[in-house]
């Protein structure tokens, strides 16, 4: 390691993106989640990350984790229901 250079954060997969700009897929997902659930800013980015990482994780590892399509569907429904609940509570607190 070159002296003075900070250590690497952690090992990543070979799919690490070379640029630090936002991936078009992530931008599209942020926008879609924002419009579907009527949230914006940091909330949209956070929930978009939850959904897209879950979906990609399920596509890659679902078979190995023995996740049925029905089970992943229920998980996504539960996530959507929780998001709606969180949003409704915020609206109630800050109308």
């Amino acid at each position: 390691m070159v002296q003075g250079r900070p250590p690497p954060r952690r090992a990543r997969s070979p799919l690490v993106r070379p640029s630090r700009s936002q991936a078009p897929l992530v931008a599209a997902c942020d926008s879609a989640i924002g419009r579907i659930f009527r949230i914006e800013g940091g909330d949209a980015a956070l929930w978009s990350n939850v959904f897209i990482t879950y979906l990609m994780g399920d596509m890659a590892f679902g078979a190995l984790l023995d996740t049925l399509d029905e089970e992943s569907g229920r998980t996504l429904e539960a996530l959507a229901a929780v998001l709606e609940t969180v949003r409704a509570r915020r609206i109630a607190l800050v109308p």
Partner: protein
Amino acid sequence: MVVAAQEGGQDPYPTKRRLPIQVANEAKMIAGTIELLYVHDVGDITSRMIADASGTATNYISRYFGGRDGLLAAVADELGMKISALVRGDPSIMRFDQPGNHLSRITSIPEVALWFKLYRYLTGRNVPASTMRSGKPPIVRAVEASISSIFGLEGKYLPICANLFLTYTMGNEAFGGFLGTTDEEAEETLVTMYQVVHLLMDQTALPAVD
């Protein structure tokens, strides 16, 4: 040491009658492969290396496991049980203030890194969980048991929470770099999932899940 043979003294694969010598050879081959995984990439481990490390023969792999993928699936199964036993055997892992700390403790277990390495390889080989001889992967059962004991969550939402935590963690491990997810964002998301579990416990706020 093979954990599967220890837990409760029960045969983990009771539907299949096997000779004691076969059970012993399988255990040696699984243990030998785990030792090799500490120092080699999965793709670099050959049948000859497994046979040498376990003191068996190369043709035992196809005879006992139906091939190399079958052996690796059995190793993944064994690692899952080992991780489960390690987590249950260390009460300090179960005491935590933040869900991120709990996950950090679990992911710092060396066997978890081996397990991820193996699963990434098996995913590329398109090997499904049905290859595992003990059914639902032990890591899934371990995460369900862990969430149940930590949050006191039972019933229909328990598999959902376990599936969410596990799939997100593995998805982030594999694709976090590609998606540009920072460690801070992943941590924030895990804290959000902690809140998700609490909201799921308040079942009346949600539509019924059959």
